[in-house]
């Protein structure tokens, strides 16, 4: 192949048509309460890991729900399971359970 000296960026778009939602559906099925997230960010605001690293619980689980699994396991490993987010979540979501579930389901991503 001729090297033209430039390349094309991978699209950033979340392509729902291409993403395989099977794992995402499994996660939602095991923990339907995750669907009730209104994205208020209270979990992330109080998160110690999130204040010191790029870790953003809200973003990671939302991406997982859209079928974007790449890096989710590694990200969730930053969670120290302190549970402050669970105390504050207005939807009463078992956020620590979500971390454990995503790690269990997406260990190979």
């Amino acid at each position, binding site marked *: 192949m001729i090297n033209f000296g430039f390349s094309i960026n991978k699209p950033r778009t979340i392509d729902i048509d291409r993403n395989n939602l099977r794992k995402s559906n499994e996660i939602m099925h095991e923990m339907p309460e995750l669907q009730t997230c*209104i*994205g*208020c*960010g*209270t*979990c*992330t*605001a*109080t*998160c110690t890991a*999130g*204040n010191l690293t790029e870790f*953003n619980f*809200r*973003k990671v689980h939302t991406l997982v729900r859209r079928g974007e699994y790449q890096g989710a396991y590694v990200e969730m490993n930053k969670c120290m399971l302190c549970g402050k987010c669970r105390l*504050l*979540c*207005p*939807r*009463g979501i078992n956020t620590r359970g979500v971390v454990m579930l995503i790690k269990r389901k997406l260990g190979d991503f």
Partner: protein
Amino acid sequence: MKHVIIIGGGIAGMQCACTLADRGIAATIIEKEADLGGKIRSWHVLFPTFTSADEVLSAARRRLAQAENVTIRTGCEATKLTPKRVTLSTGEELECDAVVIATGFTLFDARLKEEYGYGIYDNVVTSADLEHMFNKGEVRLSSGQAPRRIALLHCVGSRDEKVCQRHCSKVCCVTGVKQAIELKKMFPTADVFNFYMDIRMFGPGYEEMYREAQLAHNVHFVRGRISEVSPTIDNRLQIKAEDTLTGRPLKMGIDMLVLLVGMRSNDWNTSLEAECGLKCQPSGFMQPKDSFLGNVESNVEGIFYAGTVTAPKNIGESINEGTAAALAAAEWISK
């Protein structure tokens, strides 16, 4: 002469009595407070027109004063009721032909959200407290100084599983925007930030007022719920939230925090369910007979609802329901 007892003398109950009087039906208002008017008595100006609450209430009072066959019983509560008889806290029993329940709502107690520090730190106030301050014409910090930076937090005691208030209180969003504008008018150099999860501008002129707040008053809107409030060494408050639109945690020092407290159902509603055969919704508000065709009727014939006893509503909607309940009661009596 036919006679309807209205329980609750807020704006819905007052409107209901006037409409009944117009139709030649006697009405008795049972009000637990010493004065009629309900919650509106505490408000300053009303969204989205900034009409004085007093102006609306005075008009209702004038109409009521001119109405014939309206009896007002203040300072007493109804303890038991059937469509034909209401028992008062004084032990007295009143006969009637129908009952309208217009008992309204209870303001959420912000102390339950301990992480926001209401009742713990100075300068954390509720939206209701702020209305009192506006009415007195003076908004001041506990030090006596004027606030330079103010944050308003939406959804306090609404949409919150942790305090068993799952419902949306509907009017806090627009109240928050209205109060932000009032604060900016009072303190043009202050920074005002609204922390919201969703902005629900459901009524005519509300969205326009929201735009006005951004455009003309430079009110800042941050999409994120405050997670905690703590005092700082210089006697200010520090708030933490996630700025969800940038995906980064945010912190900020402020002088004053306003909690936009929601509407919750009255405790009395559970006894209405237990003793009068009426139905409550899971939110605790009373269940109307039908959400489309019977909004002001209850599941018991001869008992009607008006205003926020069935769900959070704004003042215009409550007044309309006062009329609707009166007409429904009049029709039922004539059968």
